[in-house]
């Protein structure tokens, strides 16, 4: 089939696994989960190489979270060079529309076809090189961006899988269900469900409050026959770390390791890796 050999499949030939991070509702922590997933994958083996692609074109947060805000993408004869969040060791490649905007207040107001073209370029024109994992952070919902992704990645479908992120409250779960039906419609294997913002521990007295109620994710996973990967409470240390935007070459990974979330995420990562082997 002529579909099999496209610019995208050629470019992604040496990418072993592609994990798409989905969430129905906005602000449930997709980007923070994608960021943590990428960092954990890098840490999972001394030779692991990971890429992270931010296809949230109108609200890119990945550059800020990795502390590479304001960096630019360079053009080389072999395509765009991604920004390496870990500096010279080049094990964590980032690409986002945020790197292409001149000014951090610029808005991207694009309709479907233009977004589609941008996403195709991200997949076919970026010099991803050899990667063990490519994590794709998506915008909320199931929209143009998602359809474009699935269309362009059709040639590498066997290497695709998804992780769904939700918060525990009813409104978010309803949207997560829509996400799930999307993955079923496009035949995308789901590695599991993560419940984020599940409780908040008061830094003063340690009392855990269920800011957005709790347990909804596990319940939904049980009903839908999904693997429940785990729940992550609101972690103010993580928020400050990812929001701080500090530059620091090896800083981010080692500082992340000290947050309470890092410990919890290791379990989640194990679940993801197991699901991957099963599928």
């Amino acid at each position, binding site marked *: 089939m002529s579909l099999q050999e496209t610019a995208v499949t050629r470019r992604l030939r040496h990418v072993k696994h592609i994990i798409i991070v989905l969430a*129905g*509702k*906005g*602000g*449930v922590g997709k*980007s923070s989960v994608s960021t943590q997933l990428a960092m954990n994958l890098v840490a999972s083996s001394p030779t692991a190489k990971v890429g992270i692609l931010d296809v*949230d074109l*109108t*609200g890119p*947060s990945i550059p*800020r*979270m990795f502390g590479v805000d304001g960096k630019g993408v360079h053009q080389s004869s072999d395509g765009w060079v991604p920004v390496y969040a870990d500096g010279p060791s080049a094990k964590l490649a980032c690409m986002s529309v945020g790197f292409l905007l001149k000014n*951090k*207040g*610029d*808005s*991207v*107001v*694009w*309709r*479907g*076809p*233009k977004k*589609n*073209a941008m996403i*195709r370029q991200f997949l076919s024109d970026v010099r991803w090189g050899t990667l063990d994992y490519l994590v794709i952070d998506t*915008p*909320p*919902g*199931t*929209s*143009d961006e998602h359809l474009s992704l699935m269309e362009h990645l059709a040639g590498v479908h066997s290497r695709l899988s998804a992780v769904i992120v939700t*918060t525990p*409250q*009813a*409104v*978010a779960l*309803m*949207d997560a269900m*829509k996400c799930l039906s999307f993955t079923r419609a496009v035949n995308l294997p789901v590695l599991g469900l993560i419940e984020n913002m599940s409780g*908040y521990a*008061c*830094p*003063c*007295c340690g*009392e855990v*409050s*269920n*800011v*957005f*109620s709790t347990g909804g994710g596990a319940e939904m996973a049980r009903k839908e026959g999904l693997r429940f990967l785990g729940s992550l409470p*609101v972690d*103010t240390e993580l*928020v*400050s770390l*990812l*929001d*701080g*935007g500090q530059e620091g070459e090896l800083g981010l990974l080692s500082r992340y390791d000290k947050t309470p979330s890092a410990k919890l995420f290791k379990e989640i990562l194990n679940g993801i890796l197991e699901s991957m082997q099963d599928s």
Partner: protein
Amino acid sequence: MIAVQSPASVPDPRTIPSNAPEHCPGTESELAGKSDACAGCENQETCASGATKLPDPSLPFIKKRMSSVKRKILVLSGKGGVGKSTFTAQLGWAFAADDSTQTGIMDVDICGPSIPTILGIASEQVHSSSSGWSPVYVQDNMAVMSVGFMLPSSRDADVDWGDLDYLLVDTPPGTSDEHLSIVQYLKESGIDGAVLITTPQEVALQDVRREIDFCRKVGIRVIGLVENMSGFVCPNCKNESQIFKPSTGGGKQLAKETGVEFLGAVPLDPRIGMSADYGVSFLDEYPDSPATTAYLDIIDKIKDILHD
């Protein structure tokens, strides 16, 4: 009123036809029908004729419908999950607290409509009457229209709003197709302004900067900025802590930088989310919460700014 307008006769507002080639410049573009990508496209002739650049024929119709609506306010946020829909619902309830004020809420979040759940009317259906679709009434003076009532597609033009004092439009996150369409449709009949919602952390603020840029690009007045989830009061020890740390000064600093009015900060109260899940008004249920006071102050400020 115009009763026989069938939705099918109105051309699709999205400027890119579904059969367009990949690099379609958009039917409103100067290059429509003339760019390289247009060669071979079925629509090339129509686009090149310039017909597509004329105003959408449904605009006068919408203008007429909207003429009975006094104030149209957009609720925008760059980032998702900052509490847009919750805020919209509370604002609606606060306006409707005055029996003589007719309030409408329109939810244009096609991918994730949450307004019906938050208002406790998720199971309701929209009725079709001779003068258009009748919105769902939460109470006598509060009407709601959401894509959630009629997936997969909706057309705001055909809703028979009747006389309204306020129409609040809840939008999806970002600056996307839905925003362009709603702005294009409502601009003709006048948008009174936009309220922007953010949370305190820089990641959310970055998106608000983009949203302000969007408003300025399309010529919508920014009424002001609300900082939501600003601090958390522990129900046990009553001490306040910052869940989302304002590492760059939060909403207040951003408002100052961009010359936008800062409307206020609403602390995070777990009961707000719970009220939203059960579809009840937070302001009525928990009048003693600091969040209620903050909401009411903000609503007063919005009314002041609009001179109502």
